[in-house]
């Protein structure tokens, strides 16, 4: 009876110490999100939208998935939805919606803006950006 008790306490204590050390090591070495990574993510997404805007690659017809893919760094994911609306006397005459890019599940930032295409149309841009 005494032996059983002694063995159990010893094993429990040792296991506890080992688990404590391992969990502390894992906790200390695990990456954590920081405000800096948020700032880099948002700046990176704006940069990509800026470049696409300059290249006129944000229209329903001119949206360029290949260019978006080339511009997006490995650590970033961005999905852009482009919406174009044309009205005459308040009546909707045409509407288009086009999405490029993909975004894995997880936290994402949303950015909204407008793009004046070289075709003369004004497009509403919604972008969602996250980390891969």
């Amino acid at each position, binding site marked *: 009876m005494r032996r059983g008790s002694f063995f159990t306490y010893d094993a429990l204590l040792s296991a506890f110490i080992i688990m404590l050390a391992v969990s502390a090591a894992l906790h200390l070495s695990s990456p954590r999100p920081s405000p800096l990574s948020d700032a*880099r993510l948002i700046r990176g997404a704006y940069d990509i939208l800026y470049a696409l805007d300059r290249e006129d690659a944000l229209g329903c017809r001119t949206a360029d998935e290949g260019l978006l893919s080339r511009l997006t760094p490995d650590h970033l994911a961005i999905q852009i939805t482009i919406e174009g609306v044309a009205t005459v006397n308040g009546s909707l005459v045409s509407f288009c919606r086009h999405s490029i890019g993909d975004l894995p599940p997880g936290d994402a930032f949303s950015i909204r803006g407008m793009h004046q295409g070289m075709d003369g149309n004004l497009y509403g841009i919604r972008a969602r950006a996250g980390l891969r």
Partner: protein
Amino acid sequence: MASHSIRGQMLSADLVISASVFMMVFATVPATVSFSTMRLTQSSIQKDMSYSGYMAAESIIMGAGYPGDWESSPNDLQSIGLASSPRALDLGKLSALSGIGYDDARNALFVSPYDFSLQISALSGEHILSYGDALDSTQIHTETRYAGCGNETCRLTLTLYGGQK
């Protein structure tokens, strides 16, 4: 007698198990502490490089530097900025950067103690500027940003190098 013998064996078995567990803990804890310390140091350097790289890239593409017309008097350069307005690179500042010494440029970018290299190329593939040399380092951090340079859209790649191999 028999019970004495059994009791003695129980004690021995206990002792062996306890000693084994103790040795395991004794061997595991220092290795774990050493590993964690190394990871923490690397992580700290990586975060510092990430912060320095982000700030340097931001000042390059968003600001004109200090003084604002440093390209006309490079000896007065205190802070490097290559933009005439946010995200619009100034071609005059780009060509003036080539005449700045590496150490002066590194200090004006505030990336010390890290080394750096800067590449700017148009999306069409045209090479515009290459400054600093790529190094063989144990820790590397890269910032990629986009800005206008004249009629072109440019990709700016700023790379920081940590401990040399």
